[in-house]
């Protein structure tokens, strides 16, 4: 028997992201992970949630310069994934509750997985 776990993926627009995440939070979903995939000049960002082993995924497509709002106001622990998004991929994330400003993951090469290898850092939340 191989487990055929049902996994749902829903495309979400940038302007609806926080509303959708808030809805899942209110429904009792646990944040599993946030992960980025290079899809050729842009990023696909997967926000994964679980409730009673039902896996749900919100999928956001963002350009390399697109500022993505932080969901750490809804899921406090999201800061680890959002700092990772910034430090490894160079994605500017705005409003992270604990913003390491590029020092959470200390890599020898800045933004090692960035699609554009930008030198600047726009993730400076005051």
């Amino acid at each position: 028997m191989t487990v055929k776990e049902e996994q749902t993926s829903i495309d979400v627009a940038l302007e609806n992201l926080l509303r959708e995440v808030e809805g899942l939070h209110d429904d009792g979903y646990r944040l599993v992970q946030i992960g980025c995939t290079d899809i050729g000049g842009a990023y696909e960002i997967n926000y994964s949630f679980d409730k009673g082993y039902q896996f749900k995924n919100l999928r956001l497509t963002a350009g390399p310069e697109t500022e993505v709002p932080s969901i750490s106001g809804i899921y406090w622990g999201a800061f680890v994934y959002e700092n990772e998004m910034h430090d490894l991929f160079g994605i500017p994330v705005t409003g992270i509750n604990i913003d390491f400003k590029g020092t959470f993951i200390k890599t020898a090469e800045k933004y090692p997985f960035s699609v554009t290898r930008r030198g600047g850092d726009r993730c400076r939340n005051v």
Partner: protein
Amino acid sequence: MPERIIVPFGPQHPVLPEPIHLDLVLEDEKVVEAIPSIGYIHRGLEQLVQKREYTEYVYVAERICGICSFIHALCYSQGVEHIMDIEVPDRARYLRTIWSECSRLHSHLLWLGLFADSMGFENLFMRSWQLRESVLDVLEDTTGGRVIQGTCKVGGVRRDIGQEKLDEMHRELDPFEQKCRDLGDVFLNDETVKYRLQGLGIVGKDEAYALGAVGPTARASGVPVDIRETGYAAYGDIGFKPVVETAGDCYARCAVRVKEVYASIDIIRRAIEEMPEGPIDVKVKGTPDGEYFSRAEQPRGEVVHYLRGDGSKHLARARIRTPTLANIPMLVKMLPGAQLADVPVVVLSIDPCISCTER
């Protein structure tokens, strides 16, 4: 208000086997804030998936960590199997379960030793690692490797365990369990251990769930999350209930792991008794085209391998979310209120695996 000072903790510290750094903001000896940072040994293994064939990447996945090695290989393999719609033979599922639980056993015994060491209880440390050696001996006998087994592959497993060896393992389980229970009694009932751990680093159930905690760290706070309940490998056949405690302190996190040692022995016993006959692998043809979030329960909690194939022999993306990364927010919430002298014990109580986190 007392003066606040910042004390750096790590990346090199006697209690840390691997490098993680914490900036501890102190008022006198009391921690008021802890700010973690990682990345000292980040290896970029996720990107290697684009340079290794999908069947070869199992070896890389297994080397993400020397403790959770087999379960990384299992999680990756079952993700590819799901994308390619491969049905793994029953015997391979049972063998995967046995090796997964051996990994959990040696990881928990390793952690119990380190935890005892962090409390200054050296005899308990040595006894825990002595018992761990016998698990490593079984892994070496059955796979050829103590920490990197190399037996899991896409489509099944590479090695079988003969009936003679299975019988021998089954015979040795009872005396081994008794030794583990004697060890566990000290962790659970010794007054000095209780005095050191109870009421330390408390996180409640609702907060642990909201923080996305996983594994023994979550279960010690009363969150019954254990991916083995989804029934992957042979857990669905054997039946499984997670070990849950409710106090949410360092003692509860220790108690969960002690009781999971007993549970793992029981799972191995039942897997041996119910081991089906038959092949251990299937021939794999074609290339993966699709995506899947594969999940498995490591000793430290839920691991996620997000795999995406584009029909070529290389996967386009592997994203690995390890349990320690998910438990860092818990650590940040546990530390405020603790005394500086208790910080090593609290940090170790989440069983941080930096090798996994720095995949």
